[in-house]
């Protein structure tokens, strides 16, 4: 019975504490990126400025965030404000996890220059094109980082502009130095980043896995032959050992194996998001203090069209079951303010045009700057269409993987992907 009386005492005590703080509304914010420390400090700042609101900060691993939120919201649980990948918002909105924000935006406004100032808003809309389920928060895109010393050693004067030039440069680097030219992750987990590389290639050739059919529907925008050529292209790097050994065993282009190879000068080039490059440069400078950076950044290669990468990032959504939408909205407004980005989210770029101008890219990041303004596109029809991005992503990575290890031909793998996407549409 001791235990019970202890529990009763505890309950009474908690009640007492809660009673004294009754004026405070408690809401929860769940964050998924690795700079949780500085963001948490930003939340504390918000709590200081709003004594009537107490935001509790939670951190969850990104790979588990979506499933967990779906489980929770299905039974009316979960954080009041959640940090989500750009591409999850529509699905979560449709499933009833995220609150429609139109009314809140109309009455209270959003961001520093209104809704139209936000990037990638198409990913936050329901199929009707009007209902808004999320507010774009931070944004990012990918570009190339080259090792200038290896390029020079191989006699490559200009950074490769096309995919074929990249392959040729890799061969020259291999011949001249014995080192791999282009490092990328070709692993096959459900969120393997070969998915991005496949899309970068097809987009820069004017193709896409999902396009609008012009009659309000969606269709596959690439033939199996074209897709097979992409698989063959990346496979060449593996066959000729032009990429790092073990590429098939890693799933992210920021894997330490790739970053370490770049930092130690063992690899010619990588393709990476903004902060991947930032981290690489920081690591290199730490190890080689005072020396000049042997790297240059550039846009991704292109095919018959222009370079294209995805506009990535995360959005904020408000739980459909929240009891405190007003307070949650206040938090969203703080998180999308310049003050917050300036002090508490220094690693990521805000997903608002007007704020982006306030955070110029350093000179060494020129390639990213260019990619951002000229070569980044939204997922668009991928997200708007009926096919779930996660499922297409998984299928693409799996089929690529099985072709890259030679389990099936690239044509079979390509047909598998096209059939899967067609089926989903």
């Amino acid at each position, binding site marked *: 019975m001791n235990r019970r009386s202890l529990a009763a005492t505890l309950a009474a005590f908690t009640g007492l504490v809660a009673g004294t703080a009754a004026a405070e509304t408690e809401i929860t914010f769940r964050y998924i*990126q690795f700079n949780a420390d500085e963001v948490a400090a930003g939340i504390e700042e918000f709590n200081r400025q709003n004594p009537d609101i107490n935001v509790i900060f939670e951190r969850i691993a990104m790979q588990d965030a979506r499933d967990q939120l779906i489980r929770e919201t299905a039974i009316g649980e979960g954080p009041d404000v959640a940090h989500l990948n750009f591409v999850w918002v529509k699905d979560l909105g449709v499933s009833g996890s995220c609150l429609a924000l139109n009314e809140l935006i109309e009455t209270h406004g959003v961001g520093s220059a209104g809704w139209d100032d936000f990037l990638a808003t198409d990913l936050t809309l329901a199929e009707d094109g009007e209902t808004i389920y999320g507010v774009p928060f931070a944004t990012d895109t990918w570009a190339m980082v080259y090792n200038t010393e290896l390029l020079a050693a191989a006699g490559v004067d200009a950074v490769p502009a096309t995919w074929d030039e990249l392959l040729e440069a890799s061969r020259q680097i291999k011949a001249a130095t014995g080192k791999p030219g282009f490092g990328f992750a070709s692993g096959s987990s459900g969120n393997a980043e070969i998915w991005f590389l496949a899309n970068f290639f097809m987009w820069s050739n004017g193709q896409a896995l999902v396009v609008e059919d012009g009659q309000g529907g969606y269709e596959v925008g690439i033939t199996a032959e074209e897709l097979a050529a992409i698989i063959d292209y990346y496979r060449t790097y593996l066959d000729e050992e032009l990429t790092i050994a073990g590429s098939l065993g890693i799933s992210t282009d920021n894997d330490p194996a790739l970053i370490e190879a770049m930092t130690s000068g063992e690899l010619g080039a990588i393709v990476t998001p903004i902060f991947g490059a930032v981290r690489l440069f920081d690591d290199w400078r730490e190890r080689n203090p005072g020396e000049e950076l042997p790297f240059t950044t550039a846009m991704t290669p292109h095919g018959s069209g222009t370079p294209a990468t995805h506009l990535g990032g995360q959005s904020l959504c408000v739980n459909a079951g929240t009891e405190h939408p007003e307070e949650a909205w206040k938090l969203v407004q703080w998180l999308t303010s310049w003050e917050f980005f300036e002090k508490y989210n220094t690693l990521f770029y805000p997903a608002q045009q007007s704020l982006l101008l306030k955070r110029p890219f350093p000179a060494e990041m020129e390639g990213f700057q260019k990619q951002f303004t000229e070569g980044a596109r939204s997922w668009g029809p991928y997200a708007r269409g009926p096919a779930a991005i996660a499922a297409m992503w998984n299928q693409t990575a799996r089929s690529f993987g099985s072709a890259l290890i030679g389990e099936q031909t690239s044509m079979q793998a390509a047909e598998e992907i096209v059939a899967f996407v067609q089926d989903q549409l």
Partner: protein
Amino acid sequence: MAATAAAPMPRAFRVNTGFSLPGELALVVLTILVLIFLVYPTAWIIVASFKTSATMFSATEFEFTLENYVSLFQTGFARNIFNSLYLCIVAVLISTFVSTIAAYTFSRMRFRGKSMIFGSVLLGQCFPWIILVTPLFILFAKMGLLNNHFSMLFVYTAITIPFSVYLLVGYLEGVPRSLDEAAMIDGCSRFQAIWLIIFPIMLPGIVATATYAFMLCWTEYLFALAFLTKTQLKTMPLALYAFFGEDTSEWGRIMAASALTTAPTLLLFLPLQTRLTSGLAAGSVKQ
């Protein structure tokens, strides 16, 4: 043999091992190689946790730092350690108690349907946990038990019962029934017989069982992930796993957290080594 024929040696070296000297040395070398294989991966993590980020993955360089641990504890990891310890210890106590009384009943009593009931307890071991997560999540949500240590205590008790019962019944089978019967004839009640006679004899088996159960809870990730989302309540594996990001991972913290997750189990195991051996012998190897 060669060993015994060799020059005067300390007493221990005159043991006849049944092997010639080269054979003995080969076995010793083999043992050392096997031990390196067993220890190396864990040792590697512990060493890496004291390296700076610049030298962490470099085989040749080593710069000592405590920065990884400092930065780990800044995330509130002490709280995660406490949560894990608390959950695992309480769950193991409940589970071992429940399993002990059930095991005693299975071993000593006869009742209708016993083999079926006992069989169904043991079958608990063959359920894949992955299929239990979502239904349990919905069930707990309906009962308002999410983000609550009660639900985790429940889960951790439940996952450890089947194997614990199995081990303990096996152990009890090695304890002669005449012991408790004699005690009861001497006027002990059944509870007294259990507490005064059986329990002390069973203690090594109970310790082995509890250790096993502790391990199971300590490393559990799937259920904790689904049921605990509040930072204040999270266990060590959850906190550790959250350091793996989508595009980047905080390797310094991961290494430090890994080392700290391994340390308590190592410290728990090493002193228990002999008890574990005898406990397992009796528990899972009925002679």
